[in-house]
């Protein structure tokens, strides 16, 4: 679709970004860079700024200071190359749409006032097939379970043919059995798109990502290469304690061996 961006241009680059809602600082002096095809998980306590960080990358919010570049350009310019799955769909359960209608919304930016083309439908079907929900295409969206809906929303994000995928709590409504299957799918996706996922469950995400960003006003970066999910889980018990520990680290991240 688009000409490939050279690898040296980072997928996302934040430089000294600060953001506050009125008087309340949400993010202070955040700097990091995410390379193309990197897979990153954002963890941290509620209100720590994870969703805000995603919205800054999407250009829905503008930082008070600092700059954010997505694929080398401003977030607004890069928007069409980002697929986004929101945590909460401000969703009206009586809204009569089919699953296909919802996934096709990922193509809505390219149709003008017209109709969806056969190509749009093919891309939407393919996105659903990747998440193993293509059998649901003609079902009413409001008849689905929470986990199915979540997958449809990821399929919708994929239908945008994104270079970067932003997933806000993709496992929020998913039961544990399905969750495993879920991350298998995400792992597959991470082979061809840059994935940023917000998650509560570090044990799971650490199997698919290469770095973990702890977001709590600041962003601390942990590579997961030397660690299995089990060890991290043992070490921190949960993500809240994970961000409480004291350390300083470079933008490249640090090894947990340093602090033990």
């Amino acid at each position, binding site marked *: 679709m688009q000409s490939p961006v050279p690898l040296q241009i980072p997928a996302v680059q934040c430089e000294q970004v600060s953001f506050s809602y009125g008087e309340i600082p949400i993010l202070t002096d955040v700097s990091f860079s995410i390379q193309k095809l990197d897979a990153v998980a954002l963890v941290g306590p509620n209100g720590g700024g994870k969703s805000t960080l995603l919205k800054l990358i999407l250009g829905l919010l503008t930082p008070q200071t600092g700059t954010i570049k997505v694929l080398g350009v401003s977030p607004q310019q890069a928007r069409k190359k*980002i697929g986004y799955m*929101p945590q909460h769909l401000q969703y009206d359960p009586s809204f*009569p749409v089919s699953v296909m209608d919802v996934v096709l919304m990922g193509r809505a930016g390219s149709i003008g006032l017209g*109709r969806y083309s056969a190509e749009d439908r093919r891309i939407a079907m393919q996105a659903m097939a990747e998440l193993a929900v293509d059998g649901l295409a003609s079902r009413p969206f409001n008849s689905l379970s929470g986990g199915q809906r979540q997958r449809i929303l990821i399929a919708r994000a994929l239908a945008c043919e994104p270079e970067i995928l932003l997933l806000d709590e993709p496992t929020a409504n998913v039961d544990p059995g399905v969750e495993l299957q879920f991350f298998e799918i995400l792992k597959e996706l991470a082979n061809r798109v840059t994935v940023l996922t917000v998650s509560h469950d570090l044990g799971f995400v650490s199997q698919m990502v290469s770095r973990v960003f702890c977001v709590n006003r600041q962003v601390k970066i942990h590579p997961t290469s030397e660690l299995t999910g089990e060890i991290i889980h043992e070490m921190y018990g949960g993500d809240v304690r994970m961000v409480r520990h004291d350390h300083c680290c470079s933008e490249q991240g640090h090894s947990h061996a340093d602090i033990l």
Partner: protein
Amino acid sequence: MLTYFSALTDPNMVFLRYALFAGLLAAPAFGIIGTYVVARRMTYLAGAIAHCVLGGIGAALYCQARYELTWLTPMLGAIVAAIGAALLIGLISLRSRERVDSVIGAIWVLGMATGIIFIAKTPGYIDPMSYLFGNILMITGGDLLTIAVLDVIVIGLGLLSYNRMIAVCFDEEFARLRGIRTELYTLLLLCLTALTIVLMVRVVGIVMVIALFTLPAATASHFSTRIWQMMLFATLLGMISVAGGLSLSYGLDLPSGPTIVMLAGFFYLTVIIGKGLKNRLR
């Protein structure tokens, strides 16, 4: 019933035919735009626009009588006021930091008050009741033509923007991220709402016009799994309400606007109560 059909062809009862034409012409616009309004939960905004129409009608009547501006018909005043109110309400709900519902409520009342004052100050006697609650005796052949033209505009734009409008109504933030100018679509929807309101002001009046927006669409939503089905069913329900309501009002000598609205309300209540009973019996 037979007398109703013979009345429809009676050359002395041309108003009845006009009212039926007006209602049947307007039903698709109400079905399509009403579905968007109900799905987007904008009924309150539509109510405010409808009441502002009285301001435009009043101002037009006043200018016509006072300054002999014969071209300034109440219909034209209604269109201008409706579009003006739609843009104002749209911009306020998109931009304002005030409590949006308070501002909308203020516009609602001020638009109506303006109209009443103008009508009171217009030389000669004008019955505001016929604008508030509709009066099919007032429909002229020229009105029918205006209704037909507006109808084509509303239905055309409503259907052309179908896919994008659904995307905006379903998840505005996501639509914006796809590069859709969602604020523009919100304003477009409000303007189409305004024009649709004008279509039926003559028949059911500004107070009850909102019923034709919400009741058929809300009734239809119980049978629909897709937006286009909801539009289709809402259109059919609208046509049945208008045709049935006019026939009942003629047969029972009742005011036509309220009878049409009562019929639409009857369908709605029947469906909800029926559905409730069905769920309880299960």
